[in-house]
C-alpha cells in the first residue's frame, strides 16, 4: 500500500541525532516516570503516580488498564507531553515528549479523546483537515496532498461516506471514527486513545479495535489505549500496563498480567480468568453476593 499515510517510518528515520538509545526497535520508552498533583508544595499531594517504566515498539498495541483513579489519565498526559514528569523521562524515538515544540509533537503524537466538543457546527471534512494543521505553515491553505491524506484517513476507518455530513448530525460511533480519522491525518508515529470505547455499543467497540489492530499492523503505529475494559484488553493488547491507585502493579503480555488474584485485587470484584484456544485470556465477572 502506498497511501500518504504510510510515512511514519520515514519521518522517524530522519529525526534522531541521538537516536541509538538502547534497543533501536523501541519507539516509546517510559523510564521511571512519576508525577504528583499537589495544590501547593507545602500540602499533602492529592494524587501521586509512582515511578513506572515500560517500552513499546512500532506496530504494538499497549493497553493501560486500571479502575478509576488509578492514574491512567495522568500517565497518558505524561506520555502525550501535556505534563512534564516530576522524575524520570518519557522518550519518543529518543526525544522527551514534553520538551517537543507543539507542532513537532502533533506531527508525532496524536491523541484521541473521549469526546470532542464543538462550539460552532463544522463539517466532517473540516474536522478531519484539522489533523493537518501541524503540517501546515502559518496561514497556508490546505493543499491537494492534505485533502488526499484526509480522505485516506477517513477511508481507513470506513467513514469516507460521512465526508460531507455535519459533525453534530452523525451518531456517536460515527463521530468516534471521524475523531480517529483526524488523528490519522496527523500522520503520527504514536497514537494515544483515551477510553475510546466508552460511548460505543458492543459492535462498534469491536469494529474500532479491529481497525486499531489493522492500523497498527499496516502503518506501524505504536498504539496506546487507556481503558478499563478487561476483555477487550485481553483480546487486542500486545502489552498491558496494569495500574492501581497510582502504582504500576505489572507490565507484560495479557496472559501474564491477567492473573485471577491480581485482577480481583485491582478491580475489587470476584472474577475468573480462562485462556481461550488463541492463547488470549477471557475474564468472567461474578456478583459479590
Amino acid at each position, binding site marked *: 500500500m502506498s497511501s500518504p499515510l504510510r510515512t511514519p517510518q520515514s519521518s522517524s528515520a530522519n529525526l534522531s541525532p541521538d537516536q541509538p538509545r538502547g534497543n533501536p526497535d523501541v519507539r516509546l520508552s517510559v523510564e521511571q516516570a512519576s508525577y504528583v498533583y499537589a495544590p501547593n508544595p507545602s500540602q499533602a499531594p492529592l494524587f501521586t503516580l509512582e515511578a513506572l517504566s515500560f517500552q513499546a515498539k512500532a506496530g504494538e498495541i499497549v493497553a493501560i488498564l486500571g479502575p478509576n483513579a488509578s492514574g491512567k489519565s495522568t500517565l497518558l498526559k505524561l506520555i502525550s507531553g501535556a505534563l512534564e514528569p516530576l522524575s524520570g523521562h518519557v522518550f519518543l524515538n529518543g526525544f522527551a515528549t514534553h520538551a517537543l515544540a*507543539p507542532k513537532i509533537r502533533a506531527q508525532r503524537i496524536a491523541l484521541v479523546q473521549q469526546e470532542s466538543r464543538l462550539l460552532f457546527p463544522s463539517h466532517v471534512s473540516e474536522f478531519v483537515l484539522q489533523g493537518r494543521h501541524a503540517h501546515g505553515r502559518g496561514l497556508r491553505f490546505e493543499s491537494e496532498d492534505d485533502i488526499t491524506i484526509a480522505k485516506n484517513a477517513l477511508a481507513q476507518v470506513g467513514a469516507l461516506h460521512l465526508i460531507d455530513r455535519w459533525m453534530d448530525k452523525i451518531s456517536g460511533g460515527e463521530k468516534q471514527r471521524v475523531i480517529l480519522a483526524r488523528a490519522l491525518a496527523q500522520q503520527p508515529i504514536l497514537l494515544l486513545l483515551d477510553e475510546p470505547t466508552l460511548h460505543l455499543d458492543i459492535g462498534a467497540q469491536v469494529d474500532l479495535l479491529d481497525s486499531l489492530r489493522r492500523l497498527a499492523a499496516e502503518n506501524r503505529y505504536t498504539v496506546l489505549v487507556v481503558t478499563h475494559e478487561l476483555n477487550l484488553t485481553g483480546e487486542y493488547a500486545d502489552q498491558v500496563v496494569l495500574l492501581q491507585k497510582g502504582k504500576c502493579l505489572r507490565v507484560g503480555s495479557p496472559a501474564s498480567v491477567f492473573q485471577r488474584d491480581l485482577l480481583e485485587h485491582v478491580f475489587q470484584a470476584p472474577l475468573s480468568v480462562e485462556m481461550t484456544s488463541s492463547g488470549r485470556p477471557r475474564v468472567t465477572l461474578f456478583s459479590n453476593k
Partner: protein
Amino acid sequence: MRPLTLGRLFLRCGILAIILFFVVVIALKLGAVQVSLYGLGRDLIRVLLHQSSGISTDYGMIVVDIRLPRILLAIVVGASLSVAGTSFQALLRNPLADPYVLGISSGAAVGSILALMIESQFSLSPEFSGLITPFGAFIGAAVTIAAVYFLGRREGQIDSSTLLLGGIITASFLSAVIMFLMSTLAAGNLRGASYWMMGSLSSLPPTSLLYFLGIGFLVAAGAIYTTASDLNLLLAGEKEAMHLGVDVPRVRMVVYLAASILTGLAVSVSGAIGYVGLLVPHAMRMIFGSDHRMLLPASALGGAIALVIADTLARTVVAPSELPVGAVTALVGAPFFIYLLRRRLS
C-alpha cells in the same frame, strides 16, 4: 470536500467590499442636507485629485469635511469592534462574548477618561496628548479582560455562564465608575457620560488620530489574522488545540493583546458602542461558516458596513437632531443577544 481557497477568500471579500462602497455612497448622500449623486461623485474625485480648493459649495463642505471623515471613522470603529468580538468569541470559547457585553468597552472607556484627566492635569505636547487616550483605553481594556477572565474561571476551566455574568457585572460596575468620574472629578473637556456609555461617532477626532487608528487597526487585526487557523482549533478547547499542534499560550497572548488594542482604539474615539462585536460575527458565521481565515476579514468588512448603516440611521431618523449610534446598535443587538442566549439554552 471544499476547503477554503485563497481565490474564494478574495472573491467573497471583494463582494463585501463592493457592498461597503455602495453603503458609503448612500451614507454620504443621506443627511439633513440633501446632496445629488452627481455632485457627490464630482466632489469626491476632486478630493482624490487633491483639488479640494475646487469645492466651493456648502454641499461639498458638508460631504467632504463632515460626512466623509465620520464615515471613515465608522468603518474603522465597526471593523475593530467586529474583529475584537470574533477574537473574544474564539479566545473565551463563548459565542456570546462581545467587548461591550463583557464590560471590556466600559473598561476602555474608564481608561480613556482617566487618560483625558491626566492629560488635562499636565500640559503635554499636542502630538503626545493625542495618543494618550487610545493608550489609556488599551490599558483599560486589557485590565478588564484579565479581570473578567479570572472571574469566569471555575476549577481552572472557563465556565461560560460565569464568564458572561462576571462580564455583565463588571460592565455595570464600570458604568458606575464612569458616572462617578463624570460627576465628581470631571474637569475640562471629557465629553458626556452618555458618550462613553452609549457611544457616538458625532465628535470627530483630529485627522492625525484617524490615520493612527487606521494603522493600529491594520497591525492589530493583521496580528490576529496570523493566528486564524489556530483559532479554528482553539474552538475545540485549549487541550485539544495543543494536541493538534497549536502553541496555545502564544496564540492566547497575541489575540488577547491585539483584541485589547482594537477595543481600546475604537472606544477611545467613539465610546462604548455595543453589540457590533456580537451581531456581525454571528451574521458572517451564518453566511460564510466558522473558518476564521474567512470569518476575520468578513467580520471586519461586515462590521464596517453595519456601523456605517447604524450611524447613518442615528443621524437621519430624528434629523436635524441625532441619536447616539450605540442606541441604534443596542436596539437591534440586545434582542439578538437574547435570541442567541435562548437558543443556546434549548
